[in-house]
């Protein structure tokens, strides 16, 4: 039996539903020794900003129970480097990109969207990172943050007809409400979830383990929270969802697919198991075979509640 993993989102077609999450797969070929990148459904890039960003001081990462904290601070080489050095690589290996973008203001988002619009079809969609530190810094309180997000969403929508995913963090407040609002403002889909804000203390040094004090919690520890958001958002508004948060194994990915996720993105798991993505892909296929599922859409949202 052959399993058809082809996944449609709007007018886009992905060869399978397994992607890599932003910021967890390097910028180009870091994992090429371990996985055939061309087999991935899509690569979601590390956040790109207009100008290069140096990121936060060290230490930036630490381990936690079932996960890790990171405060990389969106370190990246900026748009120009991305267009010049990264895009050609993915074009050559024929692997679709979902480019994750962030900015200090809506102008940045528009600049990025405009430039990336020109790079279709290798750039297949955009993921707007609405949980970046600067967007957060801009707004006092949840209301104000939501307003800024919606404004950015509307402006980017006017800039391009590409498929746009809004990436949300539970830190933004009531995710279901924001999901609805951001969709109304032009998002074609949602990426759920970004990291949860957390902290760890080195009791020997009496200092926070991260120089930035707080950081983003990722990994299996947050999987239940991610799954719940996918469930609640899918129940409230039936938009495409890229799901991420603690996906380590095929079983984890299947939990999200059953709950309705359209794509699943493998994040922190790459650090623990560089072959995670393709093992997950094979595992999903094996599960489908064992359960006589010939098209992945039969699995999607098949949870009995």
């Amino acid at each position, binding site marked *: 039996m052959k399993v058809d993993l082809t996944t449609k989102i709007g007018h886009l077609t992905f060869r399978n539903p397994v992607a890599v999450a932003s*910021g*967890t*797969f*390097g910028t180009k070929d*870091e*994992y090429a*020794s*371990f996985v055939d990148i061309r087999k991935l459904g899509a690569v979601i890039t590390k956040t790109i900003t207009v100008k290069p960003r*140096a*990121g936060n001081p*060290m*230490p*930036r*990462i*630490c*381990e*936690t*129970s*079932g*996960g*890790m904290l*990171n405060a*990389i601070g969106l*370190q990246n080489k900026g748009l120009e480097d991305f267009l010049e050095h990264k895009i050609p690589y993915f074009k050559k290996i024929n692997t679709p990109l979902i480019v994750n973008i962030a900015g200090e203001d809506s102008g940045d988002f528009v600049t990025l969207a405009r430039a990336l619009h020109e790079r279709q079809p290798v750039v297949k969609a955009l993921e707007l990172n609405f949980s970046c530190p600067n967007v957060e810094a801009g707004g006092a309180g949840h209301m104000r943050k939501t307003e800024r997000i919606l404004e950015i969403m509307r402006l980017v929508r006017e800039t391009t007809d590409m498929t746009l995913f809004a990436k949300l963090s539970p830190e933004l407040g009531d995710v279901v409400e924001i999901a609805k609002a951001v969709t109304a403002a032009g998002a074609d889909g949602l990426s759920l979830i970004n990291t949860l804000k957390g902290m760890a203390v080195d009791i020997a040094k009496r200092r926070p383990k991260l120089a930035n004090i707080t950081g983003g919690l990722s*990994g*299996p520890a947050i999987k239940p929270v991610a799954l719940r958001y996918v469930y609640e958002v899918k129940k409230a508004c039936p938009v495409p969802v890229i799901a991420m948060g603690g996906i*380590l194994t095929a079983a984890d990915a299947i939990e999200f697919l059953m709950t309705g996720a359209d794509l699943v993105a493998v994040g*922190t798991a*790459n*650090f*623990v*198991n*560089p*072959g995670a993505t393709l093992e997950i892909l094979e595992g999903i296929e094996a599960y489908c075979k064992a359960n006589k599922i010939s098209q992945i859409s039969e699995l999607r949202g098949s949870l009995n509640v």
Partner: protein
Amino acid sequence: MMVDLEVKIEANERVNGKYYRLVFRSKPLAKGVLPGQFLNVQINPGSGDPFLRRPFSYYRAAPSGRIEILYEALGKGTSALARKKKGDVLKVMGPLGKPFTGRLEGGRKRVLVAGGVGVPPLIFLAEQFPSAYLLIGAKSKKEVLPKKQLALVKAKVLYSTDDGSYGRKGLVTRLFEDILRREGPGDLFIQTCGPMAMMRAVIEIARREKIPGEASLDKTMACGVGACLGCMVETTDGLVPSCTEGPVFGFERIRL
């Protein structure tokens, strides 16, 4: 070529009051390895605790595929590793990172300055490439490695201990300054690995005396392949990942 493989432990034993030695066999993980490179080890494969891998330098790697790691049990991961028995399985990624410079130009005299978890890669280096001195700093005599572990080292090995129970009393930088006085700074080349405070002191002296050298930096790592940007080092050409651009950096490149 980097690989990620399951390996079976052939031996895992206490060496002295400080170190454990782990042995396993894997041709792909041993192929073309040079001192200073490292492995990223999943200590409990199939378990989520510890969650991240742990980096360890190659202590030895033979063409037969025999690989050794010398390690200290400091925290959760290394303590779990110390409990492993012959036959237990680890998942190991490697070879990772850039090695120490092997053959030196202009007949420079190699001086190796090691401490703590920095000892293993420098022993490996001293076994592979003739060196003038291998200076090792330790707390006390009980941390001193058994002769057998140093049998293949092509260098004069000198110890310093904090309490003076073995070798020179005091910090290893004292030994280093002894050497400096004896040999003059002219044609030395320093390679160092150990606690950051030690390396900082060594680099300071080297800079003052205009001696070139390399340090292997010990940064907390997650991915080991340049993907997470967690292990960055400030260099003259900006922030770079220690796991791919290092862990070995020329003194002139490191911004301290």
